[in-house]
């Protein structure tokens, strides 16, 4: 390992963001602020109570989106970057692709870096497929000559041979994505940065895209930094991974171990405070206080009973109802229910109120799911938190293999009577 060449060196990389207080963005606002100031009045645009729930520094105006991250990438390595939303993955990629500059620290590279952040940037609807291939390729850093030599390959890979001279505005969205990915995949930088592109396109194309990624990584010996929420892809593609949490790198090692650590999660994975939750519907009462999945620390297993504990503050209510809703990673609603459906009437008790929602034989396939919660007063909803908590579901049936991804998000234990 030591004799391999280091192609990318990241050292003490930090990026600081300022929470929106300083500039209001318009001259008139700034003039108004100045006018208030000379009369000794308060700043009319000062925002109070701006919080970033994901940061450890609570009452500071600054947020470290990335803090003192250091790691090296060897030539030919495929490095996975794992982390929850807001952990700093995108910031890291933005810094790597030079979209913005770091606050401190350095990135040193021995090769060109090209990024595949959300493909299709710069497509112009009026231009033909051919013209867009050239334009998009050039935006991504290729020269015209380079694109020319790769042109046929790109068109073939995207499968749009018939529509090369058709304006892109007549393409289906799938075709656009395929074309965009094809251009980007045929880039020839020494280091390729990929962010979640595989989440698009149909199953067949996704397979093709992953295959291409594997070729790039393994066959052509190029270095790839790969960000995804899909652990299957990370596992398939990456030899090593890093795990980001709240802007800090908490782990760097073999992919399998990093994924394990990520899925176990921090204490936030199974227990979450719902006070001042960012997804709470505006203007609603803060009834729900805390949610605990299972016992708060053990894994959730597919097909077993799942207990969800919700702490409530019901002082203002005479009667209440509660409901839940599961969504998969694509945001599709999978299952939901509420106490009204069962005709159950609930009345607040004195002291601390908590309700346990027990779902028998959880019919969710292993993946990550979000849980939304609703509390009503018996007539209408008074507290709504969409995606209150997101947690993974695991598979642990000894004699049954886990369902394939394309079989969907739900499953039922099936008997084969013959």
């Amino acid at each position, binding site marked *: 390992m030591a004799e391999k060449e280091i192609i990318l060196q990241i050292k003490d990389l930090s990026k600081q963001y300022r929470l929106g207080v300083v500039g209001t963005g*318009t001259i008139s606002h700034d003039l108004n602020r100045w006018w208030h100031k000379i009369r000794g009045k308060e700043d009319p645009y000062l925002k109070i109570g701006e919080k970033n729930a994901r940061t450890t520094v609570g009452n500071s105006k600054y947020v470290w989106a990335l803090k003192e991250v250091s790691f090296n990438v060897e030539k030919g390595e495929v490095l996975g970057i794992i982390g929850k939303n807001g952990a700093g993955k995108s910031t890291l990629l*933005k810094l790597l692709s030079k979209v913005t*500059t770091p606050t401190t620290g350095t990135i040193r590279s021995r090769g060109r870096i090209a990024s595949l952040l959300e493909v299709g940037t710069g497509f112009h609807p009026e231009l033909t497929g051919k013209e867009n291939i050239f*334009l998009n390729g*050039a*935006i991504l850093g290729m020269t015209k000559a380079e694109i020319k030599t790769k042109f046929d390959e790109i068109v073939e890979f995207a499968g749009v041979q018939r529509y090369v001279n058709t304006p892109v505005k007549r393409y289906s969205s799938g075709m656009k994505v395929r074309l965009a990915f094809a251009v980007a995949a045929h880039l020839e930088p020494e280091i390729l940065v990929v962010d979640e592109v595989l989440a698009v396109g149909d199953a067949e194309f996704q397979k093709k895209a992953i295959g291409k990624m594997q070729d790039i990584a393994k066959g052509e010996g190029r270095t790839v930094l790969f960000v995804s929420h899909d652990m299957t892809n990370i596992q398939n593609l990456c030899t090593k991974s890093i795990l980001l949490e709240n802007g800090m790198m908490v782990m760097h090692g073999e992919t399998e171990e990093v994924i394990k650590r990520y899925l176990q999660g921090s204490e936030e994975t199974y227990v979450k405070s719902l006070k001042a939750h960012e997804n709470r519907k505006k203007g609603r009462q803060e009834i729900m206080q805390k949610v605990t999945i299972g016992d708060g620390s053990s894994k959730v297993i597919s097909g077993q009973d799942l207990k969800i504990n919700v702490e409530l503050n019901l002082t203002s209510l005479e009667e209440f109802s509660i409901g839940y809703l599961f969504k998969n990673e694509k945001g599709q609603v999978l299952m939901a229910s509420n106490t009204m459906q069962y005709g159950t009437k609930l009345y607040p008790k004195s002291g601390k109120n908590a309700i346990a929602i027990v779902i028998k034989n959880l019919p969710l396939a292993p993946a990550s799911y979000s849980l939304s919660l609703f509390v009503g007063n018996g007539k209408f909803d008074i507290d709504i938190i969409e995606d209150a908590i997101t947690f993974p579901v695991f598979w642990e049936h000894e004699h049954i293999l886990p369902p394939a991804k394309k079989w969907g998000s739900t499953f039922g234990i099936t008997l084969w009577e013959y």
Partner: protein
Amino acid sequence: MNKPQENNTWLFEISPKSSLFDFKFKEIWRYRDLLLLFVRRDVVTLYKQTVLGPLWYLIQPLLTSVIFTLVFNGIADISTGTVNAFLFNLAGITIWNYFAECLKATSDTFKKNENIFGKVYFPRVIMPLSITVSNLLKLGIQICIFIAFYVYFSLSDKAGSVSMYILWTPVIIFIMGLLGLGLGMIISSMVTKYRDLTFLVQFGIQLFMYVSAVMYPIAIVQEKLPSYVSWIVEYNPLAHVIESFRYMVFSGAYMENPTNDFSILNILLMLGISFIVFLFGLIIFNRTERNFIDTV
């Protein structure tokens, strides 16, 4: 972990600091294909637009010129010598429009391209540069109309005569483009901080036109207005560029007493000024491009 091999050379380094005068000309040169493709895109999409799109570039200068003729020559009675007043105004407007279009289009570079700038890196300056180049097409269209009217009016001898200095036209256009680009880059950097500046730009360009000798010769200002007002025009580099252009095409026939006061030194001076504006704009632009995505 691995020890970094400090002695080896790195291809590049990204760090928080960079030199103020790092213009990255080398990088811009490497992306020259992108510049050409952007220009191509602008040209092709202009051509693919509806009929009224390209037609607008004909209507706008012609109508403006007609109104200027009515107001400034008809009502205010500004003399244009033996040159037809409409043609005189058209000359000024044609060359002014190139500057104004470049300035207007480049001044919201950052805001307009926020989406693409937020995702991929390329030298941002490619964007305003390509705008300046592709605006040459519109200028070309307008020059063609101007030539058509010039020929028409010269049949009745109302167009003066073309001077030898006409060969300097490319330099004049270059100065206008460079000034528009430079100012546009400065403004586009400020727009990232103050969004309402865009409205001021529209208004400012209009005001600026009235002090840039677009619809009157500089000599008239000196003659009719007191010196504490006329200096605005006299020291306005754009006024001199426009005046030079008119001198070139009409050989000064629009003046009361045509003199041979076309000065090459003057043009070179304007060239110098526009270079300074451009470099200043580039410095500010490069500063802004580093972190603007955090503030937009």
